[in-house]
């Protein structure tokens, strides 16, 4: 009886997700799950570099087996550039989130293609004191103290059994982080000196 119940539950759950796949679709899904998308080759022969995560992992529309995240690529010889890194979900072995420095390899033929070195990333997270600490460090790099304070409060609320509800908190980056970001924009030539000075003054006026 248990087996029939399991099948019934499985069918009910599957119906909510578009129905039970037929054998052909199952084979296609297994194949897609383990499709490496060329990452093994990039890891083998690519150029070791540093990446800085500039956003958060999100699903790829229309692709159930991949995730995407913006990465600022820092090639050993050349200017940094940002790509939208699409990777097979099954490869993700450690946390990557905004602000983290991550080890990557760049395809020698196509600089838009990279692969994250997950073993090195796991070591990096261990060195930071674990996933939570590493995420916090990354968030602090990007958003300054405000995001960390909100995250700490949310974790405290969860521990206290208040359902994780956070008190009203501003999520806007603090002035220091915004000034640092402004410096980066100027250094990378994305804004000119006049724009830099005007925005800097505007930020300082907020103090």
């Amino acid at each position, binding site marked *: 009886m248990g087996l029939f119940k399991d099948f019934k539950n499985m069918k009910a759950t599957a119906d909510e997700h578009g129905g039970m796949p037929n054998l052909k679709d199952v084979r296609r899904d297994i194949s897609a799950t383990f499709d490496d998308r060329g990452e093994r080759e990039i890891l083998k022969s690519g150029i070791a570099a540093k990446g800085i995560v500039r956003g958060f992992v999100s699903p790829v529309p229309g692709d159930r087996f991949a995730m995407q995240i913006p990465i600022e690529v820092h090639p050993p010889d050349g200017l940094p550039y940002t790509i939208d890194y699409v990777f097979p979900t099954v490869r993700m072995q450690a946390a990557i989130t905004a602000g983290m420095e991550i080890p990557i390899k760049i395809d020698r033929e196509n600089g838009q293609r990279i692969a994250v070195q997950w*073993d090195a990333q796991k070591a990096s997270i261990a060195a930071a004191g674990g996933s939570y600490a590493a995420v916090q460090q990354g968030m602090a790099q990007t958003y300054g103290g405000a995001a960390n304070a909100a995250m700490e409060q949310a974790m405290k609320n969860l521990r206290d059994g208040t359902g994780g509800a956070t008190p009203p908190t501003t999520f806007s980056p603090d002035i220091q982080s915004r000034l640092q970001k402004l410096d980066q924009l100027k250094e990378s030539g994305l804004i000119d000196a006049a724009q830099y000075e005007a925005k800097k003054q505007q930020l300082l006026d907020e103090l």
Partner: protein
Amino acid sequence: MGTLSNMITAQFSSPSEQPAAALAHWRATPPAWLPGNYREIDDSYNSVTWEWRHTQMIMKLVTLNGLLGGVTCYRITALFESDGGFGSRITVNGQPDDKTQAAIEAAAQSFQVGGTV
């Protein structure tokens, strides 16, 4: 130092070498606690990873010498960061075999700087 299953994280230091130099040193001369059957499989701007793919004798017989699986993959990564001064802080992390794990723990506990340095 902490362990979860056979996952290990251990800290070493190399006070006289910058991270890049310490990384080059460890790649050229792996630490004494790393058995010879581990091979370097990857390196990044601040790390090196070694791996040992091992098939137990019984599994070799059952799986036609590993043809049908049964291979255990042990991996260790050493990450090199600045210690804030002139030296390096080295974090060793991964899932080694039991013997190597014990050797890493012993080396880290005796504060063997850089493992072999």
